[in-house]
């Protein structure tokens, strides 16, 4: 199991919903990989502009766009369509919520696979977000991540 050459920390994404109280900001429905580029540019526009709530830090926007790309790719690859990416926020956090309709699949971050064989997307999500989690509800599986909203000056 333990491979000394494997740099990854073996971990499991906690099964828990995010805290309540987030307000929906935007939503994208993806049918295939070719729509990921549109998702990223549109998401960057929303987060980068602050959507009327002030201007978000560039760095946070880049992280959110990257993690959205990672989680949506996983959903398209491993989940059942359609893949839905939702952006929500509260006073202090952005919430990225990626849904698919495979309630049986368990998202894992693991070091058992050699580099280049998967598991990297969630690893990146874990390391660049404040919190990551997943849960199922009815016919959907949610994988979510939160990011701190930059303080307005």
């Amino acid at each position: 199991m333990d491979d000394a050459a494997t740099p990854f920390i073996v971990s499991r994404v906690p099964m828990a919903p995010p805290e309540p109280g987030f307000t929906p900001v935007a939503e994208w429905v993806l049918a295939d990989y070719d729509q990921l580029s549109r998702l990223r540019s549109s998401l960057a526009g929303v987060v980068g502009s602050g959507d009327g709530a002030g201007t978000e830090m560039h760095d946070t926007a880049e992280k959110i766009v990257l993690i959205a790309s990672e989680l949506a790719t996983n959903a398209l690859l491993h989940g059942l369509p359609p893949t839905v990416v939702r952006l929500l926020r509260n006073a202090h956090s952005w919430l990225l919520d990626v849904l698919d309709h495979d309630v049986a699949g368990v998202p894992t971050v693991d070091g058992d696979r050699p580099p280049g064989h998967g598991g990297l997307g969630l690893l990146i999500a874990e390391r660049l977000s404040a919190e990551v989690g997943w849960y199922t509800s009815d016919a959907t599986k949610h994988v979510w991540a939160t990011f701190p909203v930059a303080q307005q000056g």
Partner: protein
Amino acid sequence: MDHSSGGATVEDQGDTWVLWGEIDVAVAQRVGDELKASLDGSPKSIDLRRVTFLDSSGLRLLLLGGTAERGPLLIGAPPAVREIVTLTGLEHAVRFAEADGAAPVGGDA
């Protein structure tokens, strides 16, 4: 938008891969076979100067350009690409070179 958000070409008789734009799973699937066809047992030089985005699917594509002994030589990697390599603990699996002073790569013809 359109579907050509990113892409790759094989240059220098197969020694160099030139990537541009957004390197994600869509691009990786589109160009993967062509890049793999150039594999010849030597690590590739990969020109990343015109890459604007790269996620873990793109990272996997880069790793294809390495061998068991030597990682691919990433030329002109933008900061975000370096950050992903570091975040995933794959520094040992690639080599970095600045765009200037590196072996000449296929630029503007």
